[in-house]
């Protein structure tokens, strides 16, 4: 019993420390200028999206380019729920009446958006059940592109490539923060659950895990729906951050940004998702300021569009080549605190993956 309590306390250390880190950075940002606060809000939104993606990608080891689909579902559905009915009637005259009349606050709309994304993920689950590795990667990319084409042409609901405007752009650090903390807690709860444990065992060695009775497909589906729920909420927050949505906002670019954050932070730990988000957000903001040009004390810079992308790409490249595990290298924050319990996990993992050696 006591052992289990220690494991629980120790196991929640990464969430606690990640949350603390987010709180400190957000607190610092709230002392800053309006621009700084806006950047911090964006960071928190990306945090939710990255943690959501991590729940599936990090635990299963299956690369997905498709999670932005769930973000898109969450973003557009939140927009349709929280916009002024009058504005909706003007922008989207063909929308069914009951959707036009719907007028929820962000806090009420987000869980609904999450559930809608979850429903979509159930439809997508055959992809993760039947496909592995590269085929899964290509399929998820194809899914993202086809959904993007639909969004770009479904004039009655998304207003096509013109996009939706007039979403209440009321997201602040204060209103975004609780959702990120909630996402971190949910991710941790999944990670320490029996399903999360089995899924990570299958990530290390799918064949061995399957031979020990782990139903990989089932565990992947569980991770996928939780992950989609969080991504859907992230999408809703994103809509309220932007105030306007076009298909380009939920395209391959956003997927790559989220994966960049995850990989640089460390794909295989929750702390990695959080640290990667913070690191890349801060770096990107600095680069954006350099890119825009202007006077920085003694140094004057001309605008150089492209610098942000070049430096971020180099960051990703050097991470992949020099530190493939990312900043955290697969470890959780506070892993020294939990050395004891993680050794238990390590032992259990070894038992699971100890397949007969070849020849």
């Amino acid at each position, binding site marked *: 019993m006591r052992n289990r309590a220690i494991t629980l306390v120790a196991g929640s250390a990464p969430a606690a420390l990640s949350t603390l880190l987010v709180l400190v950075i957000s607190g610092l940002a709230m002392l800053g200028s309006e621009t700084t606060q806006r950047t911090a809000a964006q960071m928190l939104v990306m945090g939710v999206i990255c943690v959501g993606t991590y729940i599936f990608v990090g635990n299963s080891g299956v690369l997905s380019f498709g999670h932005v689909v769930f973000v898109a579902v969450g973003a557009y559905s939140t927009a349709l729920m929280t916009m002024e009915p009058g504005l909706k009637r003007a922008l989207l005259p063909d929308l069914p009446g009951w959707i036009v009349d719907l007028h929820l606050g962000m806090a009420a709309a987000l869980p609904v958006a999450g559930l809608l994304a979850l429903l979509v993920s159930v439809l997508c689950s055959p992809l993760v059940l039947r496909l592995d590795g590269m085929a899964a*990667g290509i*399929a998820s990319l194809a899914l993202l592109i086809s959904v993007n084409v639909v969004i770009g042409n479904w004039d009655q609901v998304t207003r096509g490539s013109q996009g939706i405007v007039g979403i209440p752009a009321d997201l602040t650090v204060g209103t975004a923060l609780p959702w990120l903390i909630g996402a971190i807690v949910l991710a941790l709860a999944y990670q320490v659950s029996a399903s999360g444990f089995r899924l990570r065992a299958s990530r290390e060695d799918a064949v061995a895990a399957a031979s020990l009775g782990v139903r990989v497909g089932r565990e992947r589906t569980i991770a996928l729906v939780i992950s989609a729920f969080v991504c859907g909420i992230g999408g809703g927050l994103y809509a309220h951050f932007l105030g306007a949505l076009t298909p380009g906002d939920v395209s391959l670019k956003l997927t790559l940004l989220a*994966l960049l954050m995850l990989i640089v932070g460390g794909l295989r730990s929750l702390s990695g998702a959080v640290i990667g988000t913070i690191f890349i957000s801060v770096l990107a903001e600095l680069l954006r300021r350099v890119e825009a040009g202007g006077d920085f004390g003694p140094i004057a810079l001309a605008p150089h569009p492209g610098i942000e992308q070049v430096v971020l*790409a180099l960051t990703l490249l050097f991470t*992949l080549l020099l530190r493939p595990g990312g900043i955290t290298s697969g470890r959780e924050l506070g892993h020294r605190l939990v050395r004891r319990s993680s050794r238990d996990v390590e032992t259990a993992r070894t038992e699971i993956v100890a397949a007969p050696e070849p020849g």
Partner: protein
Amino acid sequence: MAQNLINALSLGSLYALIALGIALLFSIMGLINFAHGELITIGGYTLLAFHGLPLAVAVALTVAVVVAAALTMERLAFRPARGASGETLLMTSFALSLLVQGGVLLKEGADPQSVNVLGSLGASVDVGGMTIGKLDVAIIGVTGVLLIGLAWFLRATPLGVQMRAAAEDFTMARALGVRADRVVATAFGVSGAFAAVAAVFLVARTGTLTPSMGLTPVLLGFVAIVLGGLGRLWAAAIGAYVLALLSVMLQAYLPTGLAAYRDALVYLGIIVILLFRPHGIAGRPQGVRV
């Protein structure tokens, strides 16, 4: 109808060049090279830079620059990552893709630029009542020559045989003494040369350049490869022609309401193929690579 067929052949040739460039690397080292699109971008802007020189010279220089770029990518990014998982290689190629795109953005700006490389190829000829663009003839002809050349190289030269062996079982090929560095570098070189020619044809068809111009071709290349069957080299070329035919036919005969969703249908079709026929539409399970 015949007009559509010529169109599909020309488009299919362009797709085949792109798809083969990607499939060659995938079959040998399991790399899905997203940065292949950026090789095409580099080709396009190189052509712009050499605009004014005789077409043959400009094309030769473009091929040289793109091959050099492909070899540089191999040496600096993919060789250190060799042996890593397919996912890591794919992300490495994404990083390179972003890097080149950012670099082009820095140097050339985001605005589309136009270039007319056609010259006399812009004309068309009348054959039996049909108007056939000289460009289409050139694309079909040059691609044909390149495909035959590649087939000859893979069949008749020791390096070609080594590449085919490496595509089937890279480890065993190395155990027999096949130099991994040389085979991979050759594959990148061929891939780059094909990308350069594809860039010339693409720019000749559209006449516009943007820093992200490589994205659509590379995605179409992936689609062609999946259609043909993952990991099978010549199937990728067949997939490319099938894709072009489908695309031209859908464009011509799809009701207007659905035409806007054509690409969505194509990509959904890809998912269905991956789910139910992972070895391609006409394929059967073969070898170990998936």
